[in-house]
């Protein structure tokens, strides 16, 4: 499944879809890191609004994405986690610790802009 990765200035925006398999997620992880390197991006927004279920693998993949992207000097924000999904995640003990989160795309961009200022 092709996940679109858009470039908006120094920020990459990846919009995850609903029924991503493990293989899709792994592929996405590599693709994102590649793009960050290619465009020397400073930030990545992963939009998971369409994901109706976030299980342990998805959660681990997101943490790995954030980690690998940080190693390349960029910051990741996860946006769009649905209230129901957030509730299910904490029941399962998945807290995305160490990964920045924001309500939506707008908030995610605001967060990154804020970060860039302090990172200057």
């Amino acid at each position, binding site marked *: 499944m092709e996940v679109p990765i858009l470039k908006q200035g120094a920020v990459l925006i990846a919009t995850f879809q609903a029924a991503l*398999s493990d293989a899709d997620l792994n592929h996405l992880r590599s693709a994102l890191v590649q793009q960050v390197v290619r465009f020397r991006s400073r930030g990545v927004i992963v939009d998971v609004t369409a994901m*109706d*279920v*976030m*299980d342990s693998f998805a959660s*681990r993949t997101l943490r790995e994405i954030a980690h690998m992207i940080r190693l390349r000097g960029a910051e990741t924000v996860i946006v769009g986690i649905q209230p129901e999904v957030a509730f299910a995640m904490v029941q399962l003990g998945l807290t995305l610790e160490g990964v920045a989160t924001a309500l939506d795309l707008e908030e995610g961009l605001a967060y990154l802009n804020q970060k860039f200022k302090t990172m200057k």
Partner: protein
Amino acid sequence: MARVEILVTISSDQDIVVARQKGRSLALELGFSSGDATLIATAISELARNIVSYAGSGQIALKDVQGSTRVGITVAASDNGPGIPNVSQALRDGFSTSGSLGLGLPGVRRLMDEFEIVSKPGQGTNVVVKKWRP
């Protein structure tokens, strides 16, 4: 109401998605709220994932269940994999086999209303969870 039974063969990571989507549909059909359907789908995802990771293949059966005054859904995850050597340890919160969340069974138990597991080394694993519609 007609009894429903949906069987999903689990042998690849794609089947995990199929199983949880079918679970969500069935839950909504049975009148569960969207929030509850998400909890159920998440539990199914974890159970299916365990099958793929530890047994290679297995099956998930989704059924409606009629109580005397309420309706619910049953998810039965079974496989002929290696089995769990120490079930009570696996059920203790925080226990993990590989530094992550391990089997995630305590989490699955929190997501659902009822939880039963039978697993012995060499005899595969059978997990049955239920959620009742309020």
